[in-house]
Structures are given as structure tokens and as C-alpha cells.
């Protein structure tokens, strides 16, 4: 089966600019996650979707981050405006069932200068 697709793979922007990341999960996976992984740390959950509804966005900095999952398939994560501390890898993952674990995409490495 095709994996979780993410784009772009790399992005460099200046602080205060906007950026958007795209994720296409595995077909049929109802649950989609966005994680932020800062260098030297483990991934931290930003937002969790179940179909097209938000299950958990408690750690999403809502003043600058937004995410949507239209029609319960693709998802976009946006940062506006970006700060230096947003430099990280943004990982998307999808899951059909908790006990089988996630399938992750290859992530987008964001550098804010």
C-alpha cells in the first residue's frame, strides 16, 4: 500500500512569513496526526483528526498555527506568522487502529531564519 505522503520535504522561510504543509494519509485511515519534532527531541502532538473532526488540538499554538482536514482525507497545516522557534520537522501520521501503531510520512523540515 502507498505510504503517508508529505510535501514539501524542505522549506526555508523568513520569520513572520507564512508556510503551509500538506499530508495525504494512507487510504482508509480515519485518524490523522500532525507532530512537531524539534531537533534533539521526540515528536510532540500538535493536532489529531478523526475523519474530518478535531479530536485533540490542546498543544496547537492556535494564535499562529491552523490545520484542516477537508473531506476527511488530505490535511494541511499552516503557520502564520512563523517564528524562529518553529524550526522543526513536521511529521504527519495516520492510523486505522490504535494497536497497530502509526504510519508516518517522511516529514517536512522547516527552517525559519
Amino acid at each position, binding site marked *: 500500500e502507498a505510504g503517508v505522503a508529505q510535501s514539501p520535504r524542505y522549506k526555508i522561510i523568513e520569520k513572520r512569513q507564512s508556510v503551509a504543509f500538506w499530508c495525504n494519509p494512507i487510504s482508509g485511515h480515519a485518524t490523522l496526526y500532525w507532530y512537531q519534532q524539534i531537533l*534533539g527531541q*521526540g515528536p510532540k502532538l500538535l493536532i489529531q483528526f478523526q475523519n474530518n473532526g478535531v479530536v*485533540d488540538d490542546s498543544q496547537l499554538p492556535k494564535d499562529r498555527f491552523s490545520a484542516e482536514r477537508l473531506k476527511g482525507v488530505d490535511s494541511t497545516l499552516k503557520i502564520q506568522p512563523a517564528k524562529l522557534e518553529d524550526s522543526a520537522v513536521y*511529521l504527519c501520521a495516520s*492510523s486505522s487502529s490504535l*494497536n497497530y*501503531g*502509526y504510519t*508516518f510520512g517522511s516529514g517536512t523540515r522547516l527552517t525559519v531564519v
Partner: protein
Amino acid sequence: AQTVTQSQPEMSVQEAETVTLSCTYDTSESDYYLFWYKQPPSRQMILVIRQEAYKQQNATENRFSVNFQKAAKSFSLKISDSQLGDAAMYFCARASGTYKYIFGTGTRLKVLA
């Protein structure tokens, strides 16, 4: 706090030898899942092994096995017959009924030829 702790930032192992990576966690739940993920330089998180908390038998996947001590809240990963391709960051993660993962900070494994 519901945390996952990996106390070894870096480990080294000689090719063909055995290495054990440590993980402890904190939870108040009785039903949960534990995972080990591998993250090579390509950044994609790859599921190595999973363990259901209600199962007493330790999970095994080829050269990878776990030592799950529920009372001690310990979940270590043993890699036997280490190969050069095993070199990567390894993350321990815990998940529960909310489908949300909590990751540790990772252990970098170096395999020496």
C-alpha cells in the same frame, strides 16, 4: 504528568553484538500500548515493535525483543545480532485509548563495524 523517559541519549554497539535500550514511563491508566520506533536520517519513523499492556508475554520481532515490566513501568528494547542498518534514533512511545502517543526524547544508536 504522563511522561516517557529514555535515559540514554546515545548508545554504541559492535556489529553482531547485542544492545539494550531503556525506557520508563508514567501512566495512571491500566490499558495502554507501548511502541519502539526507529528514525533513520531519512526522518521517517518506522515501527519496530509494539506491546499491549494487558499481555504478559514479551513481544518479539525477529532480532528485536522487549522486556516489559508493567509494575516497574519499564519497557526496554533488545537488539540482537546488531547490523549496520540498525544505526538510527530510537524512540519509545506510549499510547492509550485517546489514540494519542507520547514519545520519549530518543536514544541515538551507533553500530560499530
